[in-house]
């Protein structure tokens, strides 16, 4: 469903991403790994429309989307999380989820001002969806707490729930396990697998936690210094000499 071809991104003299290609099929979890500063997040920023790539193509369901504005990309069904959690901190947990559904709500000012029955039904629906996902990620009791007051692991889960209420087809997770303890990471592992199995969402994952990556990925792409280094199944990557060199060479 997603096909990235020869993606390049240049900042002034710096070529941050150089000819990176990857593809994601439906019902698949694909990981991007690589040392710090390899350009993984830049790839994400290009895919999610925050950067306009300087070269290459990105196809989503057969349509070219490189350079499409960020908000339109997420409306196509590609939604992302951030390396450093980005929540609306002074809004409550449930409100964070309502904001994310804004585009599913009719934007008509008049019906909102008059509180027409139609408007109320829609509000009710989005509240229901929000509480469904809060329950799913175990935050239902905290629904009316300000998001900024949540613990770090809870914030991570809320960010994923916030993506899920938009009913995406493809979820892009940028280091979702960073800063989580082992038990939280295990929960995350299960959650991601269940997103794929139960909700038919494909996932692109940037992650440093190798056990998580090896465990849940269907395929893995390795990037080093902006260039693609290897790609394949977890087993192939584990035994790839270039990858071992790049990782051990740095250590």
């Amino acid at each position, binding site marked *: 469903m997603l096909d990235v071809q020869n993606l390049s991104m240049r*900042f*002034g003299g710096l070529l941050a991403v150089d000819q990176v290609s990857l593809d994601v099929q439906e019902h698949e979890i694909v990981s991007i790994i690589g040392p710090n500063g390899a350009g993984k*997040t830049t790839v994400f920023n290009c895919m999610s429309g*925050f950067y306009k790539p300087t070269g290459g193509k990105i196809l989503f369901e057969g349509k070219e989307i490189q350079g499409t504005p960020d908000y339109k990309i997420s409306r196509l069904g590609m939604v992302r999380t*951030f390396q450093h959690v980005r929540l609306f901190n002074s809004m409550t947990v449930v409100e964070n989820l309502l904001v994310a559904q804004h585009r599913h709500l009719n934007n008509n000012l008049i019906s909102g001002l008059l509180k027409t029955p139609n408007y109320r039904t829609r509000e009710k629906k989005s509240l229901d969806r929000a509480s469904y996902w809060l329950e799913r990620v175990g935050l239902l009791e905290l629904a009316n707490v300000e998001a900024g007051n949540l613990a770090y692991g809870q914030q991570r889960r809320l960010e994923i729930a916030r993506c899920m209420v938009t009913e995406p087809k493809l979820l892009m997770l940028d280091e979702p396990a960073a800063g989580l303890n082992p038990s939280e990471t295990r929960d995350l592992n299960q959650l991601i697998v269940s997103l794929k199995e139960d909700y038919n969402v494909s996932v692109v994952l940037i992650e440093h936690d190798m056990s998580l990556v090896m465990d849940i990925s269907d395929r893995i792409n390795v990037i080093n210094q902006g260039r693609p280094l290897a790609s394949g199944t977890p087993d192939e990557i584990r035994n790839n000499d270039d990858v071992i060199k790049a990782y051990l060479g740095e250590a």
Partner: protein
Amino acid sequence: MQDLLYFFQQLINGLTIGSTYALIAIGYTMVYGIIGMINFAHGEIYMIGAYTALIAITGLAALGIAWLPVILIVALVCAMIVSSSMGWAVERVAYRPVRGRHRLIPLISAIGMSIFLQNYVHLAQGSRNIGFPALIEGGFRFGSADSFQTSISYMQITIFITTLVCMTLLSLFISRSRIGRACRAVSQDLGMANLLGIDTNRIISATFIIGAALAAVAGLFLGMYYGSIDPLFGFIAGLKAFTAAVLGGIGSIPGAMLGGLILGVAESMTSGYLSGEYKDVVSFGLLILILLFKPTGLLGKPEVEKI
């Protein structure tokens, strides 16, 4: 021939005004380069410089001192001292306590300061405009006596030369002196400079002082050039200078000079060929266009959005 002379006259007027805009713009650009805020009260600092200069000139006249160089130098020094102190105090009182907070907070504080200073001078000196003696009279004329003559007054020459001297001194100061080097370091990365033991508070104060001193120079000359001042005249000039700074690329000192000159010429061409009423429209319009199409200005560096 006539048309050409008329054109040159507008060009000369534009460069004169533009060079004073450049002097004021330095203050905006340096402060923005270092702490990323628009010092909205900078125009008022410049206005206070002009008032101080006028007070000094009138005082010297009362004392019977009439030798021009003495008058100019004393007026300049007084204006620079008062403006610099004001610049320092404004930063201490209104900006330092809110540094690092949300972007709008220092800006609102600066707008408050601007309103405060305007009314401070208004209450002390009245709201009517006061005549400013030209001091430097005469000039060169080109063209035949029976048709349009292009004139360059000695005042325009003085303004231009002083601006050049100030700019050269500033460039040398920034590139050679210890404080100048520290200034550059702080504008690159304030936190890092702090870790390396640079007293960033001191450097920020120095920036305000330098910017205010240059604004005071502009205050004296623009006062003489326009022939009158009032408490509101810093506001518009400040906006113009800010436009110049943005035009040249905010944060860049050569950019401020270039921006000032371009803006000055654009304005005087509007006055000369269209109508004086619309020169403000042209400069604000220019500002809006630049911000829309090239927000980094002519010589500024592009910014990459951090995600």
